[in-house]
């Protein structure tokens, strides 16, 4: 952003919005919007509360396990689709539908199938993120330069060597991009899942706070989730940067 030739760092716009929030919050216009400073001071209290820590740990476990299955499953499916035409024609359509479908509507069905517990949350996380990882991996595998595969074959690479030493590395930038997008979807999934279930972990806290009009706590919890989502995607973004130097040089 630039105003009258002066370069304004992007953080500045965030500060303006925070300032606005503070002003509106202090004007006491709406009880659902307490001042930003109040939210932050609540956040420091909330973040060390044992019930929050227990809920956050449970949420994180569900998130990590769900992502583990999404990444291994998504990368595997993407490789199968990218290397096998038959598999692609069978799976391709479904993966595309599921990647763009509003999966939130499936949550009630999953609750019926798997109960109101951690398992359902894990499945929701995996379901939300696996398809985009599959699609990106598939794109990366297809993208692999033909001459690199010919090179591998001409130097006697086995099928497994072709995949592990050439195709995987060539597809890695796309796989990481898929994982980053998958993480963001997984955060959505976990929030939606826990809110709809509203009996486990952070979902229950959200429900309690909003039911009891504890909006300072509610916003503090929201901020924490935002920061975590941002943190995860930044971490994968850093990994992506490490392979960026060759992602652009591929033809």
């Amino acid at each position, binding site marked *: 952003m630039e105003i009258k030739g002066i370069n304004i760092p992007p953080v500045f716009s965030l500060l303006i919005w925070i300032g606005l929030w503070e002003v509106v919050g202090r004007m006491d216009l709406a009880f659902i919007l307490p001042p930003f400073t109040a939210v932050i001071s609540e956040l420091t209290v909330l973040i060390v509360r044992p019930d929050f820590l227990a809920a956050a740990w449970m949420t994180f476990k569900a998130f990590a396990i769900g992502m583990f299955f999404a990444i291994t499953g998504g990368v595997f499916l993407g490789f199968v689709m990218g290397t096998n035409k038959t598999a692609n024609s069978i799976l391709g359509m479904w993966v595309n539908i599921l990647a763009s479908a509003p999966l939130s509507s499936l949550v009630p069905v999953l609750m019926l199938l798997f109960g109101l517990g951690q398992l359902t949350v894990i499945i929701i996380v995996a379901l939300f993120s696996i398809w985009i990882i599959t699609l990106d991996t598939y794109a990366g595998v297809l993208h692999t330069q033909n001459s690199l595969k010919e090179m591998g074959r*001409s130097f006697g690479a086995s099928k497994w060597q072709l995949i592990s030493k050439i195709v995987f590395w060539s597809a890695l930038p796309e796989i990481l991009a898929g994982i980053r997008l998958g993480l963001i979807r997984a955060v959505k999934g976990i929030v939606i899942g826990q809110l709809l279930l509203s009996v486990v972990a952070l979902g229950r806290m959200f429900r309690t706070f909003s039911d009891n009009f504890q909006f300072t706590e509610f916003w503090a919890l929201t901020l924490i989730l935002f920061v975590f989502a941002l943190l995860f995607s930044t971490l994968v973004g850093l990994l992506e940067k490490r392979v960026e130097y060759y992602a652009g040089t591929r033809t």
Partner: protein
Amino acid sequence: MNQAVHLPLLDEATPADPTSNIVAVRGITKYYGTDVHALENINLDFPTGQMTTLLGPSGCGKTTLLKIVAGLLEATSGEVFVKGKPVTGPGPERAFVFQDFALLPWATVTRNVAFGLELTGAPKKEREDIARSFIDKVGLAGFEEKYPHELSGGMRQRVGLARALAVDADVLLMDEPFSAVDEQNRRKFQEDLLRLLSVENKTVLFVTHSIEEAVYVSDQIVLLSPRPGRIHSIIRPELDRSESPDDIRRDKIYLDTVEEIWGNIRKYLE
């Protein structure tokens, strides 16, 4: 002085002779799908220790023929023999140099050069020692830890050449290796290649569309006609290789051979 010598074309019945011809191509025909007829009944011998160029206008199937010899493509009919044995796929006695270099962008020069050895399971120390010696031979000493995107086109192809030499194959298959290299570097590279090959004692199958390049580097030039590719003629430019590169490029035989080939190819372009 000798003139360029024309060889009689082989007939189909000529048996493969592994002693003087390390690669023999017999009756190779290639269709892509049902309607693209790339090669028609190619019979060729590639003398051991010599450089043979496949030359012709684009679409004459020269790269197709090279990839069939490499075992990367299957012929529709006919057979290729390497050292008297029929080719069924890629093999350790042949190494390929790619037009677009085909380097691993995520690997250093050393790992790229050692990659053929890595695939055969050679120990890391051993293959990197071999890689370093060939990096040195192709004139890239000091660039061992660089990545391909940090090198110029000419340097990248030197990596590709070093990788092919490192596996110690008898036959080098080079697919338009200099077409993505700029003109000045190409000349230097051609001279270096000839010097290197005179030491390494390899048989080279070289695909190019540059007439000057073909005449400059080849012992034997196979001129192919356009689709379907057939052998138009085989020419052996009898150049005095002891002359300096600049003298060779001014040599009357060199210039006459270039003219003669151009006369033949021009027909196909009109």
